């Protein structure tokens, strides 16, 4: 691993100041992804500013929402009473991800910042526009079973690997960020980017910005929510396809819905089109199928991942049916 300097930040202002005046500095959360990437030589920071001592509070907001300090570890979020009661799909998404050891160390801020698990991104001998811009994408003509089917470009077909972020995307979560230029609030759906012609840039964070918290606005329908993850083995594997959904039904009709997909795009994929078709419609299998078809209409399969398109549709329908069964009598 390349050498670097290390400093521990005691507060947000100090962290931002340290990163802004240190060449090649990066914020360090739990390190479960960044340390691995540094050992592989894919990330090469000159300095790390440890932000794990910053706020890890999980607190209730007026109106019923929840604010999670960015340094909270993933396990603490999954096990928090308010999260389990009000956003069960977020708790589920977290415990479906990684291993317990990793969830205990990984922070919420770091989870948002984790990089793709594309094999070619990790293989320094391979062409990868995300790792080394201009070297092409070996995944497009290579083995692409785990790769994206939505929002891809000719430059990159990587996926975002997070489970947590899929539930956040379905929750209208807001990411609070701060830099020397001040603080701002970024809706989770605008936080991550699609690859376009700049796949090396994963997020819309500006240079030096620090994630300070994630806010979950009150979302009563999320009490009837679930996360389902389809993967090659039943534990400790990344999603091939995952679905986070929340549903409220009244008199047989869909009063409100939230739907997001994981494992299919370079960002957690909020299914706005499907939601639009579902809202106000009858809660039937046909409705769910129609919405799933519409959301996946623009999907593009490659040599080994075309199965994800049908898998995503079936998983959406199955999750919505399950939630409709859970919620229809309330």
């Amino acid at each position, binding site marked *: *691993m*390349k*050498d*670097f*300097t*290390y400093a*521990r930040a005691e507060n947000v202002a100090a962290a931002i100041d340290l990163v802004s005046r240190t060449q090649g500095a990066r914020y*360090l959360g*739990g*390190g*479960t992804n960044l*340390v*691995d990437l*540094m*050992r592989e030589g894919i990330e090469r920071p000159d300095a*790390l500013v*440890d932000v*794990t001592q910053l706020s890890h509070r999980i607190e209730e907001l007026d109106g019923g929402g929840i604010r999670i300090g960015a340094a909270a570890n993933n*396990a603490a979020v*999954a*096990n928090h009473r308010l999260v*389990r*009661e009000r956003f*069960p799909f977020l*708790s*589920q998404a977290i*415990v*479906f991800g*990684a*291993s*317990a*050891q*990793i969830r*205990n*160390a990984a922070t919420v801020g770091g989870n948002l910042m984790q990089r793709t698990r594309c094999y070619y991104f990790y293989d320094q001998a391979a062409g990868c526009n995300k790792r080394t811009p201009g070297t092409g994408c070996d995944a497009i003509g290579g083995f692409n079973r785990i790769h994206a089917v939505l929002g891809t470009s000719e430059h990159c077909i990587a996926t975002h690997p997070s489970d947590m972020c899929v539930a956040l995307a379905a929750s209208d979560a807001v990411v609070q960020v701060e830099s020397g230029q001040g603080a701002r609030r970024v809706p989770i759906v605008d936080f991550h980017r699609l690859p376009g012609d700049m796949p090396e840039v994963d997020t819309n964070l500006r240079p030096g910005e620090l994630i300070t918290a994630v806010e979950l606005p009150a979302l009563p329908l999320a009490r009837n929510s679930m996360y389902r*993850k389809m993967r090659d083995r*039943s*534990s*400790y594997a990344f999603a091939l396809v995952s679905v986070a959904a929340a549903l409220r039904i009244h008199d047989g009709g869909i009063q409100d819905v939230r739907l997001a997909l994981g494992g299919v795009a370079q960002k957690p994929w909020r299914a706005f089109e499907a939601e639009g078709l579902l809202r106000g419609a009858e809660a039937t299998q046909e409705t769910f199928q129609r919405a799933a078809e519409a959301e996946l209409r623009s999907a593009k399969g490659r040599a080994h991942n075309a199965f994800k398109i049908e898998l995503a549709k079936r998983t959406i329908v199955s999750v919505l049916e399950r939630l409709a069964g859970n919620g229809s009598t309330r």
Partner: protein
Amino acid sequence: MLGDGGGTTISLRVNGTRYDLRVEPRVSLLDALREGLGLTGTKKGCNQGACGACTVLVDGRRINACLALAMVYQDREITTIEGLVHDGELHPLQAAFIEHDGFQCGYCTPGQILSAVGMIEEFRDGMPSAVADDVAAGPAEFSSSEIRERMSGNICRCGAYNGIVEAVRQTFEGEAAR
């Protein structure tokens, strides 16, 4: 790997003892324990967070020492396999692993045992798992499927999983009965 003259002096609290050692910032907690302090009970398997052989407890919580930088863990209470024996008495999990043949080659065993210690605490704290149907309700039964899911961050290439599950279950039930 450890800084020779370079690096920074840090203080680690391991198994109740305070150690001062010099490390470069790039030294993992795993290498600091093994190479710096000679505590070689903690094993290096994949060195990328996939196998769990390096599992240690930090303030009672299990983590992968290979993905942890030593400098980050100053002033935390670190427990390794060497710290589980008390007054020459094996920890109940260690005894149960022997009784149930929870290993063959033994390489993954320190990580399995530390992981199981942390896992039992998590279960008691009500931590949900991926096999729970209702996360709001929390885990109900300390079943085989719960144990297997919660221990999935520890790989045993000899395939001693049945013995491991039995050892963990017996220890949990033994402690619950007390």
